[in-house]
Protein backbone atom coordinates (compact mmCIF):
# COMPACT_ATOMS: atom_id res chain seq x y z
CA UNK A 1 0.00 0.00 0.00
CA UNK A 2 0.98 3.61 -0.50
CA UNK A 3 2.26 5.47 2.59
CA UNK A 4 -1.16 6.92 3.13
CA UNK A 5 -3.57 4.31 1.82
CA UNK A 6 -5.70 5.61 -1.03
CA UNK A 7 -9.35 4.79 -0.58
CA UNK A 8 -12.25 4.88 -3.04
CA UNK A 9 -15.96 4.45 -2.30
CA UNK A 10 -18.25 2.97 -4.95
CA UNK A 11 -22.03 2.68 -4.80
CA UNK A 12 -23.99 0.05 -6.72
CA UNK A 13 -27.68 -0.92 -6.48
CA UNK A 14 -28.63 0.19 -3.00
CA UNK A 15 -30.18 3.07 -1.11
CA UNK A 16 -26.73 4.59 -0.37
CA UNK A 17 -27.83 4.53 3.25
CA UNK A 18 -24.64 2.82 4.36
CA UNK A 19 -22.48 5.58 2.87
CA UNK A 20 -24.80 8.16 4.43
CA UNK A 21 -24.43 6.39 7.73
CA UNK A 22 -20.65 6.78 7.60
CA UNK A 23 -21.13 10.54 7.46
CA UNK A 24 -23.22 10.27 10.61
CA UNK A 25 -20.14 9.75 12.78
CA UNK A 26 -19.59 13.48 12.42
CA UNK A 27 -17.41 14.02 15.48
CA UNK A 28 -15.00 11.26 14.43
CA UNK A 29 -15.20 11.58 10.65
CA UNK A 30 -12.05 13.68 10.35
CA UNK A 31 -10.17 11.30 12.66
CA UNK A 32 -11.09 8.44 10.38
CA UNK A 33 -10.37 10.27 7.15
CA UNK A 34 -7.06 11.44 8.60
CA UNK A 35 -5.74 7.91 8.26
CA UNK A 36 -6.41 7.61 4.54
CA UNK A 37 -6.12 9.52 1.31
CA UNK A 38 -9.74 9.64 0.20
CA UNK A 39 -9.45 9.54 -3.58
CA UNK A 40 -13.08 9.22 -4.45
CA UNK A 41 -16.45 9.10 -2.78
CA UNK A 42 -19.32 8.46 -5.17
CA UNK A 43 -21.81 9.95 -2.75
CA UNK A 44 -20.03 13.30 -2.81
CA UNK A 45 -18.50 13.44 -6.26
CA UNK A 46 -19.45 13.46 -9.93
CA UNK A 47 -15.94 12.82 -11.19
CA UNK A 48 -15.02 9.48 -12.73
CA UNK A 49 -13.47 6.79 -10.54
CA UNK A 50 -9.67 7.18 -10.36
CA UNK A 51 -7.50 4.25 -11.43
CA UNK A 52 -4.89 4.27 -8.66
CA UNK A 53 -6.03 3.26 -5.17
CA UNK A 54 -5.33 0.76 -2.40
CA UNK A 55 -8.64 0.14 -0.70
CA UNK A 56 -12.01 -0.11 -2.45
CA UNK A 57 -15.19 0.24 -0.41
CA UNK A 58 -18.31 -1.02 -2.19
CA UNK A 59 -21.94 -0.53 -1.26
CA UNK A 60 -24.77 -2.22 -3.13
CA UNK A 61 -25.61 -5.26 -5.19
CA UNK A 62 -24.35 -6.01 -8.68
CA UNK A 63 -27.40 -5.69 -10.95
CA UNK A 64 -25.97 -4.72 -14.34
CA UNK A 65 -23.17 -5.80 -16.66
CA UNK A 66 -21.61 -2.37 -16.16
CA UNK A 67 -21.62 -2.83 -12.38
CA UNK A 68 -20.03 -6.23 -12.83
CA UNK A 69 -17.23 -4.72 -14.87
CA UNK A 70 -16.70 -1.90 -12.41
CA UNK A 71 -16.34 -4.22 -9.39
CA UNK A 72 -13.91 -6.33 -11.39
CA UNK A 73 -11.90 -3.19 -12.10
CA UNK A 74 -12.04 -2.26 -8.41
CA UNK A 75 -10.73 -5.70 -7.46
CA UNK A 76 -7.89 -5.42 -9.92
CA UNK A 77 -6.81 -2.05 -8.56
CA UNK A 78 -7.26 -2.67 -4.84
CA UNK A 79 -5.12 -4.45 -2.28
CA UNK A 80 -8.20 -4.73 -0.10
CA UNK A 81 -11.88 -4.77 -1.00
CA UNK A 82 -14.42 -3.93 1.72
CA UNK A 83 -18.13 -4.34 1.12
CA UNK A 84 -20.55 -2.39 3.26
CA UNK A 85 -24.12 -3.38 3.97
CA UNK A 86 -26.45 -6.24 3.21
CA UNK A 87 -26.96 -5.36 -0.47
CA UNK A 88 -23.28 -5.87 -1.22
CA UNK A 89 -22.91 -8.88 1.09
CA UNK A 90 -25.94 -10.95 0.07
CA UNK A 91 -27.44 -8.82 -2.76
CA UNK A 92 -29.87 -7.73 -0.07
CA UNK A 93 -33.07 -5.98 -1.08
CA UNK A 94 -32.24 -5.96 -4.83
CA UNK A 95 -31.64 -9.69 -4.44
CA UNK A 96 -35.23 -10.38 -3.42
CA UNK A 97 -35.98 -10.60 -7.12
CA UNK A 98 -33.22 -13.08 -7.81
CA UNK A 99 -35.31 -16.21 -7.69
CA UNK A 100 -37.74 -15.33 -10.48
CA UNK A 101 -35.87 -12.47 -12.01
CA UNK A 102 -36.90 -13.16 -15.64
CA UNK A 103 -40.53 -13.79 -14.74
CA UNK A 104 -40.64 -10.63 -12.61
CA UNK A 105 -39.20 -8.60 -15.48
CA UNK A 106 -41.82 -10.06 -17.73
CA UNK A 107 -44.64 -9.34 -15.30
CA UNK A 108 -43.55 -5.74 -14.80
CA UNK A 109 -42.52 -4.71 -18.30
CA UNK A 110 -44.04 -7.30 -20.61
CA UNK A 111 -42.65 -6.59 -24.07
CA UNK A 112 -42.05 -2.93 -23.26
CA UNK A 113 -38.73 -3.29 -21.50
CA UNK A 114 -37.23 0.19 -21.23
CA UNK A 115 -33.82 0.73 -22.76
CA UNK A 116 -32.06 1.38 -19.46
CA UNK A 117 -33.29 -1.96 -18.13
CA UNK A 118 -32.83 -4.00 -21.28
CA UNK A 119 -29.30 -2.73 -21.66
CA UNK A 120 -27.34 -4.97 -19.36
CA UNK A 121 -29.66 -5.72 -16.44
CA UNK A 122 -28.63 -9.02 -14.89
CA UNK A 123 -29.94 -11.15 -12.07
CA UNK A 124 -28.79 -9.33 -8.89
CA UNK A 125 -25.63 -10.71 -7.34
CA UNK A 126 -23.70 -10.19 -4.14
CA UNK A 127 -20.32 -8.56 -4.70
CA UNK A 128 -18.55 -11.65 -3.37
CA UNK A 129 -20.19 -13.72 -6.10
CA UNK A 130 -18.44 -11.55 -8.69
CA UNK A 131 -15.04 -10.90 -7.09
CA UNK A 132 -13.20 -12.02 -3.98
CA UNK A 133 -13.97 -9.76 -1.02
CA UNK A 134 -11.51 -9.26 1.84
CA UNK A 135 -13.73 -7.65 4.44
CA UNK A 136 -17.46 -7.30 4.97
CA UNK A 137 -19.26 -4.76 7.13
CA UNK A 138 -22.62 -6.44 7.72
CA UNK A 139 -26.16 -5.20 8.38
CA UNK A 140 -28.76 -2.92 6.83
CA UNK A 141 -27.70 -0.24 7.29
CA UNK A 142 -24.16 -0.69 8.59
CA UNK A 143 -23.09 0.57 11.96
CA UNK A 144 -20.55 3.26 10.98
CA UNK A 145 -18.31 2.28 13.90
CA UNK A 146 -18.20 -1.25 12.49
CA UNK A 147 -17.02 0.33 9.27
CA UNK A 148 -14.26 2.22 11.07
CA UNK A 149 -13.14 -1.01 12.75
CA UNK A 150 -13.11 -2.94 9.49
CA UNK A 151 -11.30 -0.14 7.64
CA UNK A 152 -8.63 -0.09 10.37
CA UNK A 153 -8.45 -3.87 10.18
CA UNK A 154 -7.74 -3.54 6.45
CA UNK A 155 -5.15 -0.80 7.02
CA UNK A 156 -3.29 -2.17 10.04
CA UNK A 157 -4.19 -5.85 10.39
CA UNK A 158 -5.90 -7.50 13.33
CA UNK A 159 -6.07 -10.96 14.79
CA UNK A 160 -9.59 -10.41 16.05
CA UNK A 161 -11.71 -13.45 15.28
CA UNK A 162 -15.09 -13.05 13.73
CA UNK A 163 -17.49 -15.45 15.36
CA UNK A 164 -20.03 -17.32 13.32
CA UNK A 165 -22.20 -17.85 16.38
CA UNK A 166 -25.77 -16.63 15.96
CA UNK A 167 -27.57 -13.77 17.65
CA UNK A 168 -29.32 -15.20 20.73
CA UNK A 169 -26.26 -14.99 22.99
CA UNK A 170 -25.97 -11.25 22.41
CA UNK A 171 -29.71 -10.92 22.91
CA UNK A 172 -29.46 -12.66 26.28
CA UNK A 173 -26.67 -10.29 27.28
CA UNK A 174 -29.27 -7.56 26.77
CA UNK A 175 -31.53 -9.37 29.25
CA UNK A 176 -34.12 -10.01 26.60
CA UNK A 177 -36.68 -12.77 26.64
CA UNK A 178 -37.40 -14.66 23.44
CA UNK A 179 -39.88 -13.77 20.70
CA UNK A 180 -40.59 -17.45 20.17
CA UNK A 181 -42.20 -17.56 23.59
CA UNK A 182 -44.64 -14.98 22.23
CA UNK A 183 -45.39 -16.80 18.96
CA UNK A 184 -43.34 -14.27 17.06
CA UNK A 185 -40.87 -15.05 14.32
CA UNK A 186 -37.30 -13.88 14.88
CA UNK A 187 -34.33 -14.68 12.66
CA UNK A 188 -31.83 -14.33 15.49
CA UNK A 189 -31.64 -18.12 15.66
CA UNK A 190 -29.69 -18.27 12.40
CA UNK A 191 -28.33 -14.74 11.90
CA UNK A 192 -24.68 -14.04 12.46
CA UNK A 193 -23.95 -12.23 15.71
CA UNK A 194 -21.94 -9.03 15.98
CA UNK A 195 -24.60 -6.32 15.88
CA UNK A 196 -25.32 -6.63 19.59
CA UNK A 197 -28.90 -7.77 18.89
CA UNK A 198 -30.02 -4.17 18.79
CA UNK A 199 -33.36 -4.72 17.02
CA UNK A 200 -34.60 -7.27 19.58
CA UNK A 201 -33.31 -4.88 22.22
CA UNK A 202 -35.67 -2.25 20.78
CA UNK A 203 -38.52 -4.73 20.78
CA UNK A 204 -38.33 -5.75 17.14
CA UNK A 205 -37.51 -9.27 16.02
CA UNK A 206 -34.30 -9.81 14.03
CA UNK A 207 -34.90 -9.74 10.27
CA UNK A 208 -31.53 -11.24 9.45
CA UNK A 209 -29.80 -8.23 7.89
CA UNK A 210 -26.40 -9.37 9.19
CA UNK A 211 -26.71 -12.45 7.02
CA UNK A 212 -27.09 -16.12 7.64
CA UNK A 213 -24.27 -17.47 9.78
CA UNK A 214 -22.10 -19.98 7.89
CA UNK A 215 -22.76 -22.25 10.88
CA UNK A 216 -26.51 -21.59 11.01
CA UNK A 217 -28.55 -24.66 11.86
CA UNK A 218 -31.56 -23.84 9.68
CA UNK A 219 -33.09 -27.29 10.10
CA UNK A 220 -33.19 -26.84 13.86
CA UNK A 221 -34.46 -23.27 13.53
CA UNK A 222 -37.36 -24.57 11.43
CA UNK A 223 -38.20 -27.06 14.17
CA UNK A 224 -38.15 -24.23 16.70
CA UNK A 225 -40.44 -22.14 14.48
CA UNK A 226 -42.84 -25.04 14.04
CA UNK A 227 -42.96 -25.81 17.71
CA UNK A 228 -43.51 -22.17 18.62
CA UNK A 229 -46.50 -22.09 16.29
CA UNK A 230 -44.79 -19.66 13.93
CA UNK A 231 -44.23 -22.23 11.21
CA UNK A 232 -41.14 -23.20 9.28
CA UNK A 233 -42.59 -21.70 6.12
CA UNK A 234 -42.71 -18.29 7.76
CA UNK A 235 -39.06 -18.66 8.70
CA UNK A 236 -38.11 -19.63 5.14
CA UNK A 237 -40.06 -16.72 3.77
CA UNK A 238 -38.46 -14.25 6.18
CA UNK A 239 -35.01 -15.51 5.21
CA UNK A 240 -35.70 -14.37 1.64
CA UNK A 241 -35.79 -10.71 2.68
CA UNK A 242 -32.03 -10.60 2.62
CA UNK A 243 -31.79 -13.25 -0.06
CA UNK A 244 -30.30 -15.86 2.18
CA UNK A 245 -29.71 -19.25 0.68
CA UNK A 246 -32.30 -21.68 2.03
CA UNK A 247 -30.92 -24.97 3.30
CA UNK A 248 -32.24 -28.14 1.71
CA UNK A 249 -33.06 -30.11 4.84
CA UNK A 250 -36.72 -30.59 5.51
CA UNK A 251 -38.19 -30.39 8.97
CA UNK A 252 -38.22 -33.86 10.37
Amino acid at each position, binding site marked *: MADTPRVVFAGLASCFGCQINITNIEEHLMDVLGQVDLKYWQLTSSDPMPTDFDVAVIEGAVTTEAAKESVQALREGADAVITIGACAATSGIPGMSTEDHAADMDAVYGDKVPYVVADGAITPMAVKDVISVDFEVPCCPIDPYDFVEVLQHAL*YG*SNIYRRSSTLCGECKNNERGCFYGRNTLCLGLVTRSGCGARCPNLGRPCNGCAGLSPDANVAQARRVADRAGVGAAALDSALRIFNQPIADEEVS
Partner: protein
Amino acid sequence: MPDLQTVHVADLADDATARSGNAIMMANPYRPWPARITSITPLTETEKLFEFRLVDERIRNAFHHEPGQFVEVSIFGVGEAPISISSSPSKSGFIELCVRRAGEFTQRLHEMQCGDIVGIRGPYGRPFPYEDMKGHDILLVAGGLGIAPLRSLINYIHDERSEFGNVTIIYGSKNPSEVMFRDQFEMWRHRKDFNLILTVDTPDDTWDGEVGLVTAPFASLDVDADNTFGAVCGPPVMYRFVVEEMRKKGISYDHIYMSFERHMKCGMGKCGHCQIGHQYCCIDGPVFNYWEAKNIQGSM
Protein backbone atom coordinates in the same frame (compact mmCIF):
# COMPACT_ATOMS: atom_id res chain seq x y z
CA MET B 1 -26.30 6.93 44.19
CA PRO B 2 -22.77 6.34 45.53
CA ASP B 3 -19.71 7.59 43.67
CA LEU B 4 -17.75 5.29 41.41
CA GLN B 5 -14.42 4.16 42.74
CA THR B 6 -11.44 4.53 40.46
CA VAL B 7 -9.29 1.46 40.86
CA HIS B 8 -5.77 1.40 39.47
CA VAL B 9 -5.23 -2.15 38.34
CA ALA B 10 -1.46 -1.96 38.98
CA ASP B 11 0.92 0.94 38.38
CA LEU B 12 2.43 1.90 35.10
CA ALA B 13 6.12 1.08 34.96
CA ASP B 14 7.15 4.69 35.61
CA ASP B 15 5.08 4.79 38.76
CA ALA B 16 6.52 1.58 40.14
CA THR B 17 10.15 2.55 40.34
CA ALA B 18 10.93 1.04 43.72
CA ARG B 19 9.50 -2.38 43.01
CA SER B 20 11.08 -5.56 41.74
CA GLY B 21 10.50 -6.73 38.18
CA ASN B 22 8.58 -9.75 39.38
CA ALA B 23 6.28 -7.70 41.59
CA ILE B 24 5.59 -5.27 38.76
CA MET B 25 4.82 -8.09 36.34
CA MET B 26 2.47 -9.87 38.71
CA ALA B 27 0.62 -6.71 39.75
CA ASN B 28 -1.24 -6.88 36.48
CA PRO B 29 -0.54 -10.14 34.68
CA TYR B 30 -2.43 -8.98 31.57
CA ARG B 31 0.02 -6.17 30.94
CA PRO B 32 2.52 -6.75 28.14
CA TRP B 33 5.97 -5.19 28.53
CA PRO B 34 7.80 -3.41 25.73
CA ALA B 35 10.38 -5.62 24.04
CA ARG B 36 12.69 -4.58 21.22
CA ILE B 37 13.42 -6.75 18.22
CA THR B 38 17.21 -7.08 18.23
CA SER B 39 17.71 -9.63 15.49
CA ILE B 40 15.71 -11.21 12.68
CA THR B 41 16.90 -14.36 10.91
CA PRO B 42 14.89 -15.68 7.96
CA LEU B 43 14.66 -19.47 8.31
CA THR B 44 12.41 -20.50 5.43
CA GLU B 45 9.94 -18.89 3.06
CA THR B 46 7.38 -18.61 5.85
CA GLU B 47 9.37 -18.69 9.08
CA LYS B 48 11.62 -16.17 10.77
CA LEU B 49 13.55 -16.30 14.01
CA PHE B 50 13.15 -13.13 16.09
CA GLU B 51 15.31 -12.14 19.00
CA PHE B 52 13.63 -9.88 21.56
CA ARG B 53 15.01 -7.95 24.52
CA LEU B 54 12.68 -6.56 27.16
CA VAL B 55 13.24 -2.83 27.40
CA ASP B 56 12.72 -2.33 31.16
CA GLU B 57 15.81 -3.70 32.89
CA ARG B 58 13.84 -4.79 35.96
CA ILE B 59 11.49 -6.87 33.85
CA ARG B 60 14.35 -8.27 31.78
CA ASN B 61 16.17 -9.40 34.89
CA ALA B 62 13.04 -10.94 36.36
CA PHE B 63 12.15 -12.85 33.22
CA HIS B 64 13.23 -16.51 33.46
CA HIS B 65 11.89 -19.17 31.16
CA GLU B 66 12.22 -22.92 30.90
CA PRO B 67 12.21 -25.14 27.79
CA GLY B 68 8.69 -25.70 26.49
CA GLN B 69 7.22 -22.44 27.81
CA PHE B 70 5.63 -19.71 25.73
CA VAL B 71 5.01 -15.97 25.84
CA GLU B 72 2.11 -13.81 24.74
CA VAL B 73 3.30 -11.32 22.13
CA SER B 74 1.39 -8.08 21.54
CA ILE B 75 1.31 -5.77 18.60
CA PHE B 76 -0.87 -3.02 20.00
CA GLY B 77 -3.92 -2.54 17.84
CA VAL B 78 -3.43 -5.84 16.06
CA GLY B 79 -3.75 -8.12 19.05
CA GLU B 80 -1.91 -10.75 20.96
CA ALA B 81 -0.67 -14.24 20.14
CA PRO B 82 0.94 -17.10 22.09
CA ILE B 83 4.35 -18.08 20.73
CA SER B 84 6.65 -20.72 22.13
CA ILE B 85 10.17 -19.79 23.13
CA SER B 86 12.89 -21.30 20.96
CA SER B 87 15.97 -20.19 22.85
CA SER B 88 17.64 -22.00 25.72
CA PRO B 89 17.20 -20.70 29.27
CA SER B 90 20.96 -21.05 29.64
CA LYS B 91 21.20 -17.83 27.60
CA SER B 92 19.55 -14.95 29.44
CA GLY B 93 18.77 -11.33 28.64
CA PHE B 94 16.93 -12.18 25.43
CA ILE B 95 14.50 -14.70 24.03
CA GLU B 96 14.16 -16.12 20.56
CA LEU B 97 10.80 -16.84 18.97
CA CYS B 98 10.39 -18.80 15.79
CA VAL B 99 7.36 -17.41 13.99
CA ARG B 100 5.50 -18.87 11.03
CA ARG B 101 3.54 -16.43 8.88
CA ALA B 102 0.13 -18.01 9.34
CA GLY B 103 -2.30 -15.15 9.91
CA GLU B 104 -2.64 -11.41 10.15
CA PHE B 105 -0.77 -11.12 13.44
CA THR B 106 2.25 -13.07 12.28
CA GLN B 107 2.10 -11.30 8.92
CA ARG B 108 2.49 -8.00 10.77
CA LEU B 109 5.29 -9.41 12.92
CA HIS B 110 7.09 -10.57 9.78
CA GLU B 111 6.89 -7.04 8.39
CA MET B 112 8.60 -5.58 11.47
CA GLN B 113 12.25 -4.52 11.55
CA CYS B 114 15.08 -4.63 14.05
CA GLY B 115 14.52 -1.91 16.62
CA ASP B 116 10.73 -2.15 16.46
CA ILE B 117 8.89 -2.62 19.73
CA VAL B 118 6.31 -5.26 20.58
CA GLY B 119 4.76 -6.21 23.92
CA ILE B 120 5.62 -9.42 25.73
CA ARG B 121 4.15 -11.05 28.83
CA GLY B 122 5.01 -14.38 30.34
CA PRO B 123 6.60 -16.84 30.35
CA TYR B 124 3.72 -19.25 30.73
CA GLY B 125 3.14 -22.96 30.85
CA ARG B 126 4.56 -26.14 32.30
CA PRO B 127 7.95 -26.84 30.72
CA PHE B 128 9.61 -30.07 29.69
CA PRO B 129 10.97 -31.79 32.82
CA TYR B 130 14.52 -30.89 31.87
CA GLU B 131 15.89 -31.38 35.36
CA ASP B 132 14.43 -34.91 35.59
CA MET B 133 15.76 -35.63 32.13
CA LYS B 134 19.34 -35.12 33.26
CA GLY B 135 21.32 -38.34 33.52
CA HIS B 136 19.08 -40.01 30.93
CA ASP B 137 19.18 -40.72 27.22
CA ILE B 138 17.00 -38.34 25.26
CA LEU B 139 14.91 -39.05 22.17
CA LEU B 140 13.38 -35.94 20.60
CA VAL B 141 10.99 -36.00 17.66
CA ALA B 142 9.91 -32.81 15.91
CA GLY B 143 7.66 -32.35 12.91
CA GLY B 144 7.50 -29.06 11.02
CA LEU B 145 7.04 -26.04 13.26
CA GLY B 146 7.14 -28.42 16.25
CA ILE B 147 10.87 -27.80 16.21
CA ALA B 148 10.20 -24.32 17.68
CA PRO B 149 9.43 -25.32 21.29
CA LEU B 150 11.74 -28.34 21.12
CA ARG B 151 14.67 -26.17 20.07
CA SER B 152 14.68 -24.56 23.50
CA LEU B 153 15.20 -28.01 25.02
CA ILE B 154 17.66 -29.06 22.30
CA ASN B 155 19.80 -25.97 22.85
CA TYR B 156 19.61 -26.40 26.61
CA ILE B 157 20.85 -29.98 26.25
CA HIS B 158 23.59 -28.69 23.96
CA ASP B 159 24.68 -26.11 26.52
CA GLU B 160 24.62 -28.68 29.34
CA ARG B 161 25.68 -31.60 27.17
CA SER B 162 27.64 -33.49 29.84
CA GLU B 163 24.52 -33.73 32.02
CA PHE B 164 22.70 -35.95 29.52
CA GLY B 165 23.26 -39.44 28.08
CA ASN B 166 22.81 -40.31 24.42
CA VAL B 167 20.81 -37.72 22.52
CA THR B 168 18.84 -38.59 19.41
CA ILE B 169 16.94 -35.92 17.48
CA ILE B 170 14.56 -36.85 14.66
CA TYR B 171 13.32 -33.82 12.79
CA GLY B 172 10.90 -34.21 9.91
CA SER B 173 9.86 -31.61 7.34
CA LYS B 174 7.73 -31.67 4.22
CA ASN B 175 10.64 -30.78 1.95
CA PRO B 176 14.21 -29.49 2.25
CA SER B 177 13.20 -25.84 1.87
CA GLU B 178 11.11 -26.11 5.04
CA VAL B 179 13.93 -27.40 7.25
CA MET B 180 14.50 -24.76 9.91
CA PHE B 181 17.76 -23.96 11.72
CA ARG B 182 19.48 -25.78 8.87
CA ASP B 183 22.87 -24.15 9.45
CA GLN B 184 22.86 -25.18 13.09
CA PHE B 185 21.79 -28.73 12.29
CA GLU B 186 24.20 -29.08 9.38
CA MET B 187 27.04 -28.48 11.83
CA TRP B 188 25.58 -30.91 14.33
CA ARG B 189 25.28 -33.71 11.80
CA HIS B 190 29.01 -34.26 12.06
CA ARG B 191 29.07 -34.27 15.85
CA LYS B 192 29.55 -37.52 17.66
CA ASP B 193 27.51 -36.42 20.71
CA PHE B 194 24.24 -35.84 18.82
CA ASN B 195 22.50 -38.47 16.74
CA LEU B 196 20.67 -36.07 14.44
CA ILE B 197 18.31 -37.53 11.88
CA LEU B 198 16.80 -35.07 9.42
CA THR B 199 14.05 -36.44 7.23
CA VAL B 200 11.75 -34.98 4.57
CA ASP B 201 8.62 -36.23 2.85
CA THR B 202 9.67 -34.94 -0.56
CA PRO B 203 13.43 -34.62 -1.22
CA ASP B 204 15.10 -32.52 -3.91
CA ASP B 205 18.42 -33.01 -5.71
CA THR B 206 20.43 -31.43 -2.92
CA TRP B 207 18.97 -33.52 -0.08
CA ASP B 208 21.32 -36.01 1.50
CA GLY B 209 19.27 -36.74 4.63
CA GLU B 210 16.54 -39.32 5.19
CA VAL B 211 13.33 -39.51 3.22
CA GLY B 212 10.04 -40.51 4.86
CA LEU B 213 7.97 -39.98 7.99
CA VAL B 214 9.49 -39.21 11.38
CA THR B 215 8.42 -42.68 12.52
CA ALA B 216 10.56 -44.44 9.89
CA PRO B 217 13.93 -44.02 11.67
CA PHE B 218 12.52 -45.86 14.72
CA ALA B 219 13.03 -49.19 12.92
CA SER B 220 16.79 -48.97 13.24
CA LEU B 221 16.86 -47.08 16.54
CA ASP B 222 18.50 -48.66 19.57
CA VAL B 223 16.76 -47.38 22.72
CA ASP B 224 17.69 -48.06 26.34
CA ALA B 225 14.03 -47.90 27.35
CA ASP B 226 14.43 -47.73 31.14
CA ASN B 227 16.85 -44.87 30.86
CA THR B 228 15.22 -42.76 28.15
CA PHE B 229 13.00 -39.69 28.06
CA GLY B 230 11.10 -39.03 24.86
CA ALA B 231 9.69 -35.68 23.76
CA VAL B 232 7.46 -34.96 20.78
CA CYS B 233 6.16 -31.84 19.12
CA GLY B 234 4.55 -31.45 15.74
CA PRO B 235 1.26 -31.22 13.87
CA PRO B 236 -1.80 -32.76 15.59
CA VAL B 237 -1.83 -35.92 13.46
CA MET B 238 1.74 -36.81 14.32
CA TYR B 239 1.49 -37.44 18.06
CA ARG B 240 -0.38 -40.71 18.14
CA PHE B 241 2.02 -42.39 15.74
CA VAL B 242 5.22 -41.15 17.34
CA VAL B 243 4.25 -41.89 20.94
CA GLU B 244 3.20 -45.39 19.93
CA GLU B 245 6.63 -45.95 18.36
CA MET B 246 8.16 -44.81 21.64
CA ARG B 247 5.90 -47.19 23.54
CA LYS B 248 6.96 -50.02 21.25
CA LYS B 249 10.55 -49.26 22.17
CA GLY B 250 9.50 -49.78 25.78
CA ILE B 251 9.66 -46.20 27.08
CA SER B 252 7.32 -45.70 30.03
CA TYR B 253 4.14 -43.64 29.57
CA ASP B 254 5.38 -41.05 32.02
CA HIS B 255 8.74 -40.66 30.28
CA ILE B 256 7.16 -39.69 26.98
CA TYR B 257 6.44 -35.96 26.79
CA MET B 258 4.60 -33.95 24.20
CA SER B 259 3.85 -30.30 23.72
CA PHE B 260 0.33 -29.50 22.52
CA GLU B 261 -0.74 -26.63 20.34
CA ARG B 262 -3.90 -24.76 21.32
CA HIS B 263 -4.87 -21.08 21.24
CA MET B 264 -3.71 -19.88 24.64
CA LYS B 265 -5.31 -16.45 24.77
CA CYS B 266 -4.80 -15.48 28.40
CA GLY B 267 -2.01 -17.89 29.33
CA MET B 268 -3.28 -18.02 32.91
CA GLY B 269 -5.87 -20.79 32.99
CA LYS B 270 -8.91 -18.59 32.65
CA CYS B 271 -10.07 -17.70 29.15
CA GLY B 272 -10.81 -21.32 28.24
CA HIS B 273 -9.70 -21.22 24.61
CA CYS B 274 -6.89 -23.72 25.18
CA GLN B 275 -8.91 -26.24 27.19
CA ILE B 276 -8.35 -29.86 26.29
CA GLY B 277 -10.82 -32.01 28.23
CA HIS B 278 -10.45 -30.91 31.84
CA GLN B 279 -6.98 -29.42 31.40
CA TYR B 280 -5.80 -25.99 30.39
CA CYS B 281 -3.03 -26.23 27.83
CA CYS B 282 -1.59 -22.94 29.13
CA ILE B 283 -1.05 -23.79 32.80
CA ASP B 284 -1.38 -27.59 33.02
CA GLY B 285 0.61 -27.91 29.76
CA PRO B 286 1.47 -27.24 27.02
CA VAL B 287 3.83 -30.09 27.92
CA PHE B 288 2.05 -33.26 29.09
CA ASN B 289 3.37 -36.77 29.44
CA TYR B 290 1.67 -39.60 27.57
CA TRP B 291 -0.07 -40.91 30.68
CA GLU B 292 -1.60 -37.53 31.38
CA ALA B 293 -2.54 -37.11 27.73
CA LYS B 294 -4.30 -40.48 27.70
CA ASN B 295 -6.38 -39.22 30.61
CA ILE B 296 -7.44 -36.05 28.84
CA GLN B 297 -10.56 -36.42 26.70
CA GLY B 298 -9.87 -35.20 23.19
CA SER B 299 -6.14 -34.67 23.58
CA MET B 300 -5.02 -36.65 20.53
